[in-house]
């Protein structure tokens, strides 16, 4: 399968007390072998290149030992 182009609708909220909203992004060239969190990394790289704030998401377990999935 070739790489994928996707449309992402992601909840953006600057902080807990701020109003949030869904925002739409396009990501291109995502490998089918990538994990979902790696796909979000690709999006964040694109956002940072454009000078936008990256999407905040929790990755502690995935980047350490994926304890939550393998325990």
């Amino acid at each position: 399968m070739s790489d994928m182009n996707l449309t992402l609708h992601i909840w953006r909220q600057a902080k807990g007390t701020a109003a949030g909203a869904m925002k739409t992004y396009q990501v291109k060239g995502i490998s089918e072998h990538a994990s979902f969190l790696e796909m979000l990394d690709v999006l964040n790289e694109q956002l940072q290149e454009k000078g936008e704030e990256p999407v905040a998401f929790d990755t502690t377990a995935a980047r350490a030992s994926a304890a939550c999935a393998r325990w």
Partner: protein
Amino acid sequence: MCSLVINGRPHGPDAGTTTCQLHMRRFKDGDEIYVEPFRAGAFPVVRDLCVDRKAFDDIVAAGGFVTANVGSAPDANAVPIPKEQADRAFDAAACIGCGACVAACPNSSAMLFTAAKVAHLANLPQGQPERLRRVKAMVTAMDAAGFGNCSNHYECEAACPKGISKDYIALMNRDYAKSVFVAKDAKAVSDGAG
């Protein structure tokens, strides 16, 4: 720990899978994907897709432990536990506290999480001395955190990446009822009634 609702389902479309084990081969070219944080009053959004799950820590701090002077590590088989009982305790202990059960529940109930923590120790001999005190403290902490109650939708069981059974909620409810009656009995004795 990942806390994403992907296309309306906590941890995404695969059963028994956390977000960090979800791969893009599950999607097709041109797909639209909706990504949201876990939604619950007791899990306030910190930023974007991050939520604060301190409420779970409060529940565990209220009773998810055994108060015992354990000394050095005991012999592995010094306390015999029947295999079936050990399996039930281990199945409950498999809960990773991700909060998918809360995000999936229409009431934002944390009863599957709390029940898993209660059942883990309730199925072991080490958990018996404090069993009723524990369940009462943990349910009280759960209510204080603002989680809703269970109304038997069982969305929690379907969303749980570790396959925690809803049967543990029944165990917790039975133990909670016992703890209420024991407390009433104790009060009646202290008041001088029969």
